[in-house]
């Protein structure tokens, strides 16, 4: 695989604030990397350094082999960037704005109209193509920003909160667009919406206080939760004691906790060791014992919870 984005030990301080403290990442062609992290974690600052807007205090980033600090022009040619908030020249129309971007990228006359038509088509800008950007809705503005970023068909896409402020349909459209482009490019998106990570990202990186604290797939991220693969069940109070004993004897069960007790029933939760799947072992125990169980389910880990667990524990 080809590594298209490579950052080495990026650091940035703003006065006393150490915004980014050594971020090293490689992103390969075909990967969509989701940047997660609380506000002020250093996501945008990292993206600004990768795109050459900010100069890192130490470290550097390479885009397709070009160093963003030493060869900024060559590197920038290969990046499509949607800055946070999608700033645009609001006195222009999408038509004139995209032509300006095409000018700067040196897209020649012969392929220009095709390129622009393609970007406009992919982002669904046709209805507002000749309207002044200032008068467009937030969703359309964001899409003009996206069209600008993909216009040059860059190898690397850096999108800072690409779906922020869009309605559910527009979000879906943008995610489909990202997925469709994913094969040919290396893409980094930052987001607060964790479902987006599951929907489009092949890899998730959680940043907190300027450091990478998790780097893995969305599944691996869920695996970080203590509740990953935990099994919750409800049974009669009378049979609970024996069941707990049997379950705790299982190889991969760490412990069984009692969640609640009411109307002669108990709600129990079995926590696995290292997130191992234990549901089938538990069902066989129940069958052997002939215990009557009213409810049984595997806990669904919400990424939000994992995220909160990871990013609040760090500060303590």
């Amino acid at each position, binding site marked *: 695989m080809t590594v298209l984005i490579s950052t080495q030990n990026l650091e940035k301080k703003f006065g006393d604030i150490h915004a980014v403290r050594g971020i090293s990442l490689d992103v390969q062609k075909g990967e969509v990397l989701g940047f997660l992290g609380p506000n002020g974690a250093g996501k945008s600052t990292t993206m*600004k350094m990768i795109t050459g*807007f900010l100069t890192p205090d130490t470290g550097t980033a390479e885009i397709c082999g070009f160093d963003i600090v030493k060869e900024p022009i060559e590197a920038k040619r290969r990046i499509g960037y949607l800055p946070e908030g999608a700033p645009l020249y609001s006195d*222009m129309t999408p038509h004139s704005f995209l032509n300006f971007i095409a000018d700067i990228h040196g897209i020649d006359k012969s392929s220009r109209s095709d390129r622009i038509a393609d970007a406009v088509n992919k982002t669904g800008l046709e209805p507002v193509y000749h309207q002044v950007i200032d008068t467009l809705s937030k969703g359309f503005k964001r899409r003009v920003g996206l069209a600008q970023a993909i216009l040059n068909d860059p190898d690397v896409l850096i999108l800072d909160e690409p779906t922020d402020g869009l309605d559910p349909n527009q979000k879906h459209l943008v995610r489909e667009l990202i997925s469709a482009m994913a094969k040919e490019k290396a893409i980094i998106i930052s987001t607060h919406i964790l479902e987006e990570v599951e929907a489009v990202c092949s890899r998730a990186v959680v940043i907190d206080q300027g450091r990478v604290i998790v780097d893995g797939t969305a599944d691996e991220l869920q695996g970080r939760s203590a509740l990953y693969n935990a099994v919750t069940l409800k049974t009669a109070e009378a049979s609970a004691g024996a069941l707990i004993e049997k379950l705790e004897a299982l190889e991969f069960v760490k412990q069984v906790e009692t969640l609640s007790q009411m109307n002669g029933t108990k709600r129990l939760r079995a926590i696995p060791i290292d997130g191992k799947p234990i549901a089938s072992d538990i069902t066989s125990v129940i069958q052997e014992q002939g215990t009557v169980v009213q409810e049984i389910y595997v806990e669904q880990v919400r990424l939000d919870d994992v995220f909160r667990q990871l990013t609040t524990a760090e500060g303590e």
Partner: protein
Amino acid sequence: MANTWYIAKRELFGYFGSPLAYVFIVIFVALTGAFAFYIGALFERGQADLQSFFIYHPWLYLILVPAIAMRLWADERKSGTIELLMTLPIEAWQAILGKFLAAWATIGLALILTFPMWITVNYLGDPDNGVILASYLGSFLMAGAFLAIGSCISALTKNQVIAFVVSAVICFLFVMSGAELVLNFFRAWAPEFMVDVIGGLSFLTHFEQLTKGVIDLADLVFFLSFIVFWLFANTIIVEMKKAD
């Protein structure tokens, strides 16, 4: 160089796509005319020249040029489009030069549109058109110097009002630096050569030379190197402050 032109083209599009350029041009032409006729007594002097027209240009530029320069970078920083601009594959100086040239060309157009003054004096008498041409050149160069200051100051702040006021004050100092009032202040404590340097930076002195019809290389070099210096400072400031 192509990139400089693309940036300039975009800026000009912005000027002429909004009332900005038209308001500027109309006010400039109206005010230069009003000053020349009512205060400069163009007719009453009974001389076929444009002295009373050009003499007010430094004072008009003092207000009008910072007004057109204030948005150049302050607006770009305030709206965040500077992030877009500076992550495109262009050098910072290309963006700075492009924006400067677009604004300068707009002022140039306003200056050209004062041509009825020139027709008037030619109709009424027999002026020295060489002097008038040199004066136009001087006025245009001086506008460029004002504009370079304004562009540089505009990169220091996100606030256009601050950019306007600070630029106007700095421009005022450069206009007045040849005046006895200012020079006496420095004579009190500064060495003589420094007083000479300060006096030599006066826009008025260099501009007056040109309005007399004397196209001295030194005056041209003064204005051009003045512009280059401020645009160079502008580049450094944009690089330093762009992400603040």
